[in-house]
């Protein structure tokens, strides 16, 4: 399976009646990358994905895949495949037949399509379950089957709609590495929609943060997290404080906020032990809430309790100016 294909969104727009769900977004997905689109619910991320998949009509603009405008093609003609949020496995078909479904629709004979389906089941490590029915599988197993079914069409781009949201936290982390491994092995572009920033950071080579129908910020995961452009991104990605200094807003990483003997005085609001860190929120005199991530060993040298007064300090150089 190839080395990935270009996918580009050009002024892509989706309107439902008068409401804009996606407002003229432009983005170029690099070939063979794992891209996470994230944002709060209703930000247009799902509509964007469904437009790329072809399950939602494009109101305006275009989707260019591998040099062709696919925006008005039916889903199966685009070279995309979609993995649905609840997996959407056919309950009346065995695992093998589920995976072979699209080949059967193309009229490929039984022996060939079953052989191909077995290959894919091998890839997701589900060969032993080929004759089971979806209802007899656990959530994680269903997800693997759904993955195999989506991949059997040899898509140029795999679209995943909140694929991990139905799993319990333990499985979620396991499937995360599984997805990443598959993407590396296949070398095709994965576009993964999620509302969880930890998931996006863990998986995405690139992140596309959406809010209010537009892309707020996009780029390599590390850039997005360490250099948020807007207040929204800083808050949504977490681990940041947004502080106003002389009317200008700055983002300040929570782990850059130190408890010291001098600085901004504040009152501890809550203390949360998180293992390696202790998350401490404090209310400053101007009423701003500041989050500080203190390394655990440091915190317990002089523990603080809610109601205690503390001094917050940070290196001025760590302040990151926000555009809005």
């Amino acid at each position: 399976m190839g080395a990935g294909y270009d996918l580009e969104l050009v002024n892509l727009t989706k309107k439902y009646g008068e409401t804009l769900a996606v407002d003229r977004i432009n983005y170029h997905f690099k070939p063979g990358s794992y891209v996470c689109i994230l944002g709060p619910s209703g930000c247009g991320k799902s509509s964007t994905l469904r437009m790329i998949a072809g399950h939602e009509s494009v109101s305006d603009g275009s989707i260019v895949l591998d040099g062709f405008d696919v925006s008005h093609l039916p889903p199966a003609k685009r070279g995309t495949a979609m993995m649905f949020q609840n997996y959407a496995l056919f309950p009346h078909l065995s695992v093998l037949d589920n995976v072979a479904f699209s080949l059967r629709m193309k009229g490929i004979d039984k022996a060939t399509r079953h052989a191909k389906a077995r290959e894919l089941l091998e890839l997701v490590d589900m060969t032993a379950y080929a004759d089971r029915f979806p209802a007899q599988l656990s959530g994680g197993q269903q997800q693997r089957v759904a993955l195999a079914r989506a991949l059997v069409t040899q898509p140029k781009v795999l679209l995943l709609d909140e694929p991990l949201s139905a799993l319990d936290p333990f499985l979620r982390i396991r499937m995360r590495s599984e997805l990443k491994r598959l993407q590396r092995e296949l070398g095709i572009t994965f576009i993964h929609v999620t509302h969880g920033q930890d998931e996006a950071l863990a998986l995405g080579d690139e992140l596309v943060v959406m809010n209010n129908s537009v892309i707020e910020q996009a780029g390599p995961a590390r850039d997005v997290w360490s250099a948020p452009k807007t207040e929204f991104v800083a808050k949504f990605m977490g681990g940041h404080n947004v502080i106003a200094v002389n009317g200008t807003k700055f983002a300040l990483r929570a782990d850059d906020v130190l408890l010291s003997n001098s600085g901004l005085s504040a009152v501890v609001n809550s203390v949360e032990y998180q293992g390696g860190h202790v998350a401490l929120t404090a209310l400053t005199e101007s009423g701003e809430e500041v989050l500080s991530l203190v390394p655990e060993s440091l915190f317990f040298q002089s523990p603080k309790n809610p109601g205690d007064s503390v001094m917050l300090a940070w290196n001025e150089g760590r302040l990151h100016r926000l555009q809005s």
Partner: protein
Amino acid sequence: MTRNLIGWLQAAPLALVLMGFLVAPIIMIVIVSFWGSTEYSIYPAFQFDNYSYLFASSVVWRVFGATFKYAAIVWVLTLGIGFTVAYFLAFHVRSLTWQIALFLLCTIPFWTSNIIRMISWIPFLGRNGIANQTLISWGVIDEPLEWLLYSDFSVILAFVHLYTLFMVVPIFNTMMRIDHSLLEAARDAGATGFQTLVNVIIPLTKPGIMIGTIFVVTLVMGDFITVRFMSGSQRANVGRLISNDIGLLQYPSAAATAVVLLCTVLLVIGILLRFVNIRKEL
């Protein structure tokens, strides 16, 4: 021990009702079916005269054949119409309000009694009825169509009219449970609308189709009044055979026919249930 007793007590009322009003009458019918009768008397006995007469009579065989024919034709038509209506309601009507409104529309004929709905066809289909007059005035035909009323056509028309809803309801109910993302998944896999229908929707609707089939087949096979009214007493089915025997006070013969009909219907349902597991729908 007491838990056991409580369980029995809880099951008792319904069991008693069923024993008294379902099992006992059937047992009674089975017993009477072995009795003997003459033109003027009925006497308790245990003989197979009624059954041997039934199975020897070519008329009875033909009437059973006609009953099956009605059941089969009505099944095909109600299934076709019922599936289409349910499909439209479940997949083409987007808003729930409209779905409910249109569904209620389907039930409006049921606000009047069966008999009235049946009889209302007569002025429509009769020799000088609305259908014939309209067709003549349009110039489609020159003289009234005789087969519109008091024929197999009118019997089947009335059956379809009466029983299509029994097909629509279970099929609609099953279809509403189909996750729409399955249809998208099928489309994503390159299935055409027709392929989706055949490979996804019909297999998933089977239990509903089966429940509707059981309703329609049992109703049509057990019916006698529709056949009598709509055929002007010119056609027969097993139900009419029984009702005629009762009219002549030939209870043992009627009971024997009823037993045979009951067994036939149970056999048909048994065969149908071999095909589809409806338990998950109940």
